[in-house]
């Protein structure tokens, strides 16, 4: 989804001369719709089964989509430039930093905060949490859970696409750009606690910092750090740093 978002931005720019800011809106919508399609036609058939089947089907779809994109776009991928207003560097006083990166940092913070508030504090968010935790009970209250779940999935896909568009000018738009982040993403979500938006956000930022510090102190271990942290978290705080402990039997 992340990769698809970036590609939508790229093709939008190529074919429709779609500017960056438009892509930032159009790509999540298109990918969100695509995610909705997948959820309704495929993933829905697997609800009620072991969640592992979801994971595995997603894995299979990634194989297919990634290769289709590779055939369409080539393995090295395509260049994507930041818009002119955001290119160049800004003097922050202590250092000079590329404007685009500042923009990304600010936008990410805003989106994270908005999602957190939306899920944890709003009525809709409460329903979504209810639907994922106790679907039968929620349904009994007259809430259409399957529509909620579809909507959430589509929204998740759209968010991933949004991230993909943001990343496009920094890295290269390539079919395997999702490959390198998918495992780390899983790890971050588990460390933060499944179902805890705040946990994922904090874990994501914290791990970024840990990895960077690790890279300076002892480079060989830097990219194993995330997994070491994850294993430790699962062992000692299985619900994640910010998750509520599961009521186990």
């Amino acid at each position, binding site marked *: 989804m992340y990769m698809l978002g970036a590609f939508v931005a790229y093709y939008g720019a190529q074919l429709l001369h779609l500017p960056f800011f438009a892509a930032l809106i159009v790509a999540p919508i298109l990918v969100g719709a695509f995610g909705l399609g997948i959820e309704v036609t495929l993933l829905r058939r697997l609800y009620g089964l072991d969640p592992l089947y979801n994971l595995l089907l997603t894995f299979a779809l990634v194989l297919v989509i990634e290769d289709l994109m590779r055939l369409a776009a080539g393995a090295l991928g395509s260049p994507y430039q930041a818009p002119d207003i955001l290119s160049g560097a800004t003097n922050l006083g202590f250092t000079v930093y590329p404007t685009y990166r500042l923009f990304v940092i600010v936008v990410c913070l805003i989106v994270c905060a908005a999602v957190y508030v939306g899920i944890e504090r709003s009525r809709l968010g409460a329903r979504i949490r209810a639907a994922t935790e106790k679907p039968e009970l929620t349904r009994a209250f007259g809430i259409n859970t399957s529509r909620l779940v579809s909507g959430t999935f589509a929204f998740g896909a759209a968010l991933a696409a949004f991230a993909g568009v943001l*990343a496009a000018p920094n*890295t290269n738009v390539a079919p395997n750009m999702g490959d390198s982040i998918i495992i780390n993403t899983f790890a971050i979500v588990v460390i933060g606690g499944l179902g805890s938006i705040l946990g994922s956000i904090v874990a994501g930022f914290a791990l970024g910092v840990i990895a960077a510090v690790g*890279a300076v102190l002892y480079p060989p271990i830097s990219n194993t750090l995330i997994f070491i942290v994850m294993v430790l978290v699962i062992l000692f705080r299985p619900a994640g740093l910010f998750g509520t402990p599961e009521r186990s039997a």
Partner: protein
Amino acid sequence: MNPLHVFVSRKGVHLNTSRFWLSLVTAGAIALPLLAPTGLGADAGPIKIAVITDMSGTYAAIAGQGGVEATKMAVEDFGGKVLGRTIEVDAIDHRNNGPEAATKAAEAYDNGAELALDLTNSATAVAVDAVAKQKHKLEIVTGGASSALTGASCSRYTYHYAYDTYSLATSTGHNIAKEADGKTWYGIVPNYVFGQSMLSDFTAAVTAEGGSFVHSDMYPFPGTTDFSSYLLAAKQSKAQVLGIFSAGADTVNITKQAKQFGLDKTMKLAVGLLFLSDVDALPDVFAGSHITTSWYWNQDKAARAWADRYTARVGGGLRPTSIQAANYSATMQWLNAVKAVGSVDADKVQTYLDGRKFNDFYAHDGEWRARDHRVIHTMIVVDVLDKSQIKEPHAWYKIIETIPADKAFRPESQSTCNKDW
């Protein structure tokens, strides 16, 4: 007694199972010799060349189908036959997987291939290296970069034909560091074999010209996509040259992000490994880089003439990469050797090739070095031009310096190739 009877009866299950298996193994053992394959006449069928390459992954544009076509061109130009037997080219996709490359190479060798060629991706080159040794057949690596192929993993059945990390690092390092504005370097290096050998070879070359490395960052590999902290440090170091010693997508990301930080305006960008197809894909990213290549399609008349034929053949206006050209050249050299020796036998062919000097459109001042099976030839250092500077499509390079064959590759005296190979 009918073995089927044993397990159809309803006695203890395990007993029945094992007894049935036992009888089956016995039956199989008796039947085996009857099933043994009848040996195919090895000298009767066509002579095959197995182009083992990446047909579908990251390196498909560097070698891939184009590498296969170049090999076929060589076979056709040679006349399609040698020693009275037809020559066939097998295209094999190694999918960047060592064991898969080894299995497919072994199968190709057993099915009449006398030469395995290309091997873009060092892990597959090293994997096939062992198979070639086992089968006593030849492997000519044009794609893999690792200097280990003529060092620690050298084998008498493997020649390393096109380039290696040593030649790239030495040529680019020497060329930049001999100038007054190329003395101080900052390296961004992926922390694995490829990056480490690039760094040590670059360091040797730069030091020899009186330059030095201010600092080098070994970044975690794989998995790093954000290089901003290294690039900021590089900027603050005030070094004159930024050494980018990675490969593939990392090179793209580092170079792209270096430009975001404006480093290309204050530093020279020395990129360790880059191919024409990379520049084709991302011209804006790589414009202004300094690189070394074994060959460039527009380097001289002979190169251009061959490139024109290649382009007419594959269509789409694409120009050949150095690896694709090397495939043609190596195939031609090998076929000529087979013809001269009168045999495809790998031992006889290498006796003929060892120490032989040659010249063609690809290799200038070429020599099949006997000591470690490094094939040496001139290398060229080039600048990557900007879109606005090129005179025709794909003419991305401006040649800065030609490095003589004996300077471009690791000297024999420093070879770490084990004599018992």
